[in-house]
């Protein structure tokens, strides 16, 4: 089987190369050569087939415990739970490269199969770009990181999987994040195709709108699961540490979010063509940059794979791809003149532009902070590092401004807003924001950041509520629909707009939850069985943690030391927490890896109680614990859930087609204001 896998890789390599060559040479229909175009199309299908065979071969080798393969021996062992044998496919560098290439080829084939109508003219170039990118990944595997590499001898057992990867979150987080990362290649391929074929009207935007949203959604889910994994598995009591690799995943997400907003301006007003193309190209380059950071070890991170020559491949690819894209982009700039100009600073367009600037500003500061050690060393000769304080200091104000734009944007009319219009629009949301602010002030909250987050959050919720209320009222007048039914109708008829508002609600929930983390309290204690520690939470309650005792036992692939803790809130028992130290062992009982920690978490709407067993004192039952009270963490996961729901509503196929303006400027004022007139 490994031989078959290795051969399939070579086959995929050749087919991919062929697809790239024929796709570029075939050019765009109708002038291009139809036979070459068809050939490029089939190449994507063949490449996908070959890579699937390679993946299956590797999985079979993993399930058969074929330790003659270096990859299988390095990441699995005989006693690894079956569940994790699946995720072993992407637990290591080489396998994850194979996974990357396969998913990309899946997208490449899907886009060829699913694209219909007038967007088909882009397909040959899209095939060429996707094949070229996939071929690069296959090249890296074949020449630097072959998952089918054999060992000179066959070990009796493998080294096993790192215990921190043996977590359900780690089974789903990488594929989700990869799906997001990888699917950015499709919008990018369409952008390049539009540039190459010089068909730069709004058509290509429509072709990629859904794909962009798909990657955005996958990236969001991947980030959220990653946060959850960090929270429950790493044991430092938080979910976001501004680690370089986390930042690398956040960067394309920020740029895509900017694109999803600014694309509306191009659709409605024919403006921002250059900007939108630049955003898509930038998002894709950032995704490759993220892959480079993760795999090269150039920036120290807790997430990185082993330092390896793979980094050079990625660096060369990144530089080459950036140079080619920018050259192509620059050569087409004359074709990208806007159809309209900005008419007023108080307009939907302007508010979207400010939103874009803020998102890109945040992305730039995150990139800058991530690269700063390298930059400062190159320029000043000393490595200077910045950490979470830097990112918080910069991004809290920018994030709050962005949150405010979330509420302001939907309230301002396209093209130009009038004063009466503004007054009518802002009254309810502003009142709602001030109301929230007053409640918190009365409740005794004095933290500026939290007050601002909540106040602005109240304003945004007011905006969204007003939008839904007005929409429902209009439907009631027109069709006599009841409010709940009208809201469902709004959501199904105009998914993009109202689904987007749901996402805005999710963003408010997330921001408030993030702000809650500034109220976390923490204590460390060494306790004998029966002894307890007290910790006052910022929710006003006093929590008492009593150490009940230690139990030790063997599980499938580990020796477990577990501590049981009784938890009381203001003296009243509310449950028990359990935290573990795990020493993973191989089939012969020898220790593998360092001991890992299983966190005990009791999650609630207001606070999470979070307990870590740090160790036992000299093997007695006296144990060291860290107790943390994390406010509002539940709301991060709930906000994430709402975000995904909102994204799915926008993405769901069907519904009313959104009219797309062509290259001509629209003669009537589009969208929002027209609706308002009808509502009067």
């Amino acid at each position: 089987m490994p031989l078959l896998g290795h051969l399939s890789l070579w086959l995929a390599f050749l087919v991919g190369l062929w697809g790239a060559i024929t796709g570029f040479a075939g050019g765009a229909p109708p002038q291009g050569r139809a036979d070459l175009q068809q050939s490029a199309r089939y190449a994507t299908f063949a490449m996908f087939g070959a890579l699937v065979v390679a993946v299956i071969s590797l999985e079979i080798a993993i399930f058969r415990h074929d330790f003659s393969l270096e990859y299988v021996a390095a990441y699995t062992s005989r006693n690894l739970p079956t569940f994790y044998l699946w995720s072993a496919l992407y637990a290591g560098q080489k396998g994850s490269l194979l996974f990357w290439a396969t998913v990309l080829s899946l997208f490449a084939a899907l886009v060829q199969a699913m694209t219909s109508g007038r967007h088909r003219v882009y397909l040959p170039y899209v095939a060429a770009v996707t094949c070229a990118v996939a071929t690069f990944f296959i090249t890296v595997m074949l020449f630097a990181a072959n998952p089918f590499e054999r060992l000179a001898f066959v070990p009796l057992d493998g080294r096993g999987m790192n215990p921190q990867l043996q977590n359900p979150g780690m089974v789903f987080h990488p594929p989700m994040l990869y799906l997001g990362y990888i699917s950015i290649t499709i919008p990018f391929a369409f952008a390049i195709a539009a540039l190459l074929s010089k068909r730069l009207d709004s058509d290509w935007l429509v072709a990629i709108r859904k794909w962009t949203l798909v990657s955005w959604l996958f990236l969001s889910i991947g980030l959220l699961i990653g946060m959850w994994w960090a929270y429950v598995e790493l044991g430092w009591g938080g979910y976001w540490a501004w680690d370089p690799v986390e930042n690398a995943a956040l960067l394309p997400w920020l740029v895509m979010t900017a694109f999803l907003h600014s694309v509306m301006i191009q659709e409605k007003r024919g403006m921002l063509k250059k900007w939108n193309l630049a955003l898509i190209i930038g998002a894709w380059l950032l995704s490759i940059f993220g892959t480079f950071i993760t795999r090269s070890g150039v920036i120290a991170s807790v997430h990185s794979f082993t330092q390896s020559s793979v980094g050079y491949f990625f660096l060369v690819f990144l530089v080459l791809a950036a140079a080619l894209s920018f050259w192509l982009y620059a050569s087409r700039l004359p074709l990208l003149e806007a159809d309209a100009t900005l008419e007023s600073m108080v307009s939907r367009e302007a508010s979207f532009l400010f939103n874009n600037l803020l998102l890109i500003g945040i992305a730039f500061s995150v990139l800058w902070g991530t690269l700063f050690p390298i930059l400062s060393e190159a320029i000043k000769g000393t490595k200077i590092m910045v950490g979470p304080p830097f990112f918080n200091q910069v991004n809290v104000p920018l994030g709050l401004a962005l949150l405010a734009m979330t509420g302001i944007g939907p309230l301002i009319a396209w093209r130009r807003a009038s004063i009466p219009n503004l007054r009518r629009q802002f009254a309810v949301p502003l009142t709602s924001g001030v109301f929230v602010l007053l409640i918190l002030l009365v409740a005794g909250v004095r933290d500026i950041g939290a007050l601002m987050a909540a106040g602005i959050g109240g304003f945004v919720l007011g905006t969204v509520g007003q939008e839904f209320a007005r929409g429902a009222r209009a439907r009631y007048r027109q069709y006599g629909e009841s409010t709940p039914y009208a809201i469902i109708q709004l959501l199904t008829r105009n998914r993009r707009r109202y689904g987007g508002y749901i996402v805005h609600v999710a963003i408010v929930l997330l921001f408030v939850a993030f702000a809650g983390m500034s109220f976390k309290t923490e204590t460390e204690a060494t306790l004998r069985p029966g002894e307890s520690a007290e910790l006052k939470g910022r929710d006003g309650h006093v929590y008492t943690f009593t150490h009940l005792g230690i139990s030790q036992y063997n599980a499938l692939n580990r020796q477990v030391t577990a501590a049981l803790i009784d938890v009381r809130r203001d003296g009243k028992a509310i449950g028990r927490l359990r935290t573990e130290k795990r020493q993973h062992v191989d089939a012969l009982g020898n220790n593998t890896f360092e001991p890992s920690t299983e966190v005990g978490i009791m999650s609630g709407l207001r606070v999470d109680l979070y307990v870590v067993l740090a160790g036992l004192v000299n093997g007695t039952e006296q144990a060291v614990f860290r107790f943390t009270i994390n406010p509002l963490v539940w709301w991060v996961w709930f906000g994430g859930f709402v975000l995904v729901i909102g994204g799915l509503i926008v993405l769901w196929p069907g519904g009313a087609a959104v009219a797309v303006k062509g290259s001509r400027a629209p003669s009537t004022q589009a969208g929002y204001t027209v609706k308002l007139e009808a509502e009067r």
Partner: protein
Amino acid sequence: MLATEWYNTNMKAGTKFALGAVLIVGSVGYLMASGIKQTGQYFLTPSELAQRVSADPSFYDLGLKVGARVVPGTVSKEIATQTLRFHITDGTVNYPVVFKGLPPDTFTDSVEVVVEGRLQRDGVIHATNVLAKCGSRYEAVPKA
């Protein structure tokens, strides 16, 4: 056009937008510059730190990060007081480190670490944070 719509009459929209953009870009730049100034920390190897300290004693008591390898056999843990003592080295210069708190799971006596803290006059680095910068974190360490 109404005279009250000052924002539409006084200046061209493009110019005003440019002002807004400059404001945003400016604040991003300012926040970044001040952020780096206030929170940036030197990242040094033990040799570099020794050099700096001998050249400029103000490097004592300065918050910084030191990246080095833990010297095998020097780790001592006092679980009762949660004090961790170890030595770090880059092959030429060796510094003792004291850390109160819980080390990460990946901390062992031969791992690469990033120690965050201050070098005090007693020649000991008093760490506020220890990160196990384990490049091969997700890959098993072959047991010797």
